[in-house]
């Protein structure tokens, strides 16, 4: 039987690696006080397509239910969790989740994510906890080096506000900034602003680099308290990261939010060796506001498939075959416990694929095992 385009059976290392990633994620997040949350894989489309959320119906796997309502396979974890937590009187603040999402824009129908959501904590504390959880998790997986990129959704809004743009034009400008499409940005800003505004936007597109760029823009944006406040916030995050041994920090002041609900700091992690994005997230207080909870909210999601690809193979373990008979199966099972660090298989005969073969002989008085050469085996 064939599979639909984008679907795949997974056998062997790709499944094993994914489970290793998820097991370590559970351990790291549990140790840091995160509680687990899961939402259903089937939701109403209306949860995701409201303008406050901003997802597009054409990007979702969807169908009509018997009542004519559109249901979708979960396209986004953050929104689903905001829906789940927003309507509940919950006091716990740190949440962890793991599971698939379905997004028709991405190759492959199913993407696996694991992520964290932190609500109701002071801004800096929540963001630092997000980033340092990511650092701890990646370190635990022995994945790296990783570059962390910091940006801030408010900068674009601050630049656009004086232009007095209509929503449609603002969206065009946001898209052009997202693509770093200089000619389009210049053309749009020219219609609504002066040469100073055009130059400021051109400069903003190129405002990415190491964290030293924050000092450069501290001078350039002198006398503009809103922008300086953003820089100051980013500088505090950089300082904490650097104090925790994370030196590869990138800043992109010209970065814009991809989803309308982002309202503050944005972050992404790149695998340095190949540029793959292994996590992304940011602050999205307005999303919880939309779902009925006035609170702070920040989180990030790891791309489990990217992380699973990056995992180094585990050290090879010895493979032992205990060759038993119908009468010695129980004895063999007892012997199995004596090889805690090996992969132990019990068979009636051994092929040549094992590192060691041990024959289990029936002796009710004195259980014994002999190795492949016939001598009595005694575990070390």
């Amino acid at each position, binding site marked *: 039987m064939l599979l639909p385009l984008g679907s795949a059976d997974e056998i062997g290392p790709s499944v094993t690696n994914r489970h290793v990633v998820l097991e370590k994620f559970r351990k790291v997040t549990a140790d840091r006080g995160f509680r687990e949350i899961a939402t259903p894989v089937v939701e109403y489309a209306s949860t995701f397509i409201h303008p406050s959320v901003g997802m597009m119906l054409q990007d979702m796997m969807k169908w009509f239910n018997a009542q004519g309502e559109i249901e979708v396979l979960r396209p986004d974890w953050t929104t689903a969790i905001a829906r789940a937590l927003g309507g509940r009187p919950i006091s716990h603040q740190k949440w962890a989740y793991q599971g698939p999402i379905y997004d028709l824009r991405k190759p492959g129908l199913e993407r696996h994510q694991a992520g964290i959501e932190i609500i109701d904590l002071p801004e800096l504390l929540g963001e630092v906890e997000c980033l340092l959880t990511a650092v701890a998790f990646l370190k635990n997986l022995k994945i790296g080096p990783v570059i962390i990129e910091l940006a801030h959704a408010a900068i674009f809004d601050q630049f656009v506000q004086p232009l007095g743009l209509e929503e449609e034009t603002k969206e065009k400008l946001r898209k052009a900034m997202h693509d*770093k499409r*200089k000619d389009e940005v210049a053309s749009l800003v020219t219609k609504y602003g002066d040469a100073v505004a055009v130059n400021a936007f051109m400069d903003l597109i190129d405002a*990415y680099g190491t964290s030293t760029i924050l000092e450069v823009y501290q001078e350039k944006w002198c006398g503009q308290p809103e922008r300086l406040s953003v820089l100051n916030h980013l500088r505090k995050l950089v300082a904490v990261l650097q104090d925790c041994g994370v030196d590869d920090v990138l800043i992109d002041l010209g970065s814009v939010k991809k989803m309308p609900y982002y309202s503050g700091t944005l972050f992404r992690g790149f695998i340095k060796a190949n540029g793959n994005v292994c996590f992304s997230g940011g602050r999205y207080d307005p999303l919880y506001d939309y779902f009925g909870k006035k609170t702070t909210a920040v989180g990030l999601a790891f791309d489990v498939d990217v992380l699973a690809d990056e995992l180094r193979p585990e050290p090879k373990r010895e493979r032992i075959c205990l060759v038993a008979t119908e009468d010695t199966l129980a004895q063999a099972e007892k012997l199995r416990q004596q090889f805690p660090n090996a992969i132990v298989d019990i068979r009636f005969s051994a092929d040549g694929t094992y590192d060691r073969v041990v024959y289990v002989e029936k002796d009710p008085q004195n259980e014994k095992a002999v190795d492949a050469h016939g001598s009595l085996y005694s575990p070390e």
Partner: protein
Amino acid sequence: MVPCIALSKGRLEKAAIDFFEAEPLVDKGRKLCIETNRYRFIFAKGIDVATYVEYGIADLGIVGEDILLEYQPDVFDLFPLSFGQCRFSLAGKPGHIVTGPKKRIATKYPNITLNYFRKRGESVDIVKLEGSVELAPVLGLADAIVDIVETGSTLKENGLVVYDDIRPISARLIANRSALKVKREVLKPLLERFQEKEVGA
């Protein structure tokens, strides 16, 4: 770690090769992958250039804006280049009268065509063709075409006229979203060179 640059074969190929002034490119023959001491070049069809850049195989790419508008790859679309300039036009036979209930438009670019007619508030049917689009109105397959027009001579030789100029386009420099940041130290001098050349052009 030399930058990998994907170049479009065909219409934009010569101009892109001239731009880099790299000796091994001139006599590359049919090789699709060339490495100099400064760059690694790969040659592919326009849409594949965008795909190689989107997936991070290539760091930068030179590709026609037609590809970017039609397929919307997830890349940084940095700036226009001074070559490959032409325009998207709606064209057909002079004085042609539409007899069917809807106009039928032949094109290699169904998304661009649909967007254009939607903005005009007009419903049309689209026939997707892969090349020699000018044939469609001549042979009665379509009422008009939407296609790239460079000099207009192909239209003229096939007895077609431009009904409407949709938008000018050119070759563009695109970049992989991660590479532009992660490999910024090696890409920055190249981007500056591009910008200097373009400003001077």
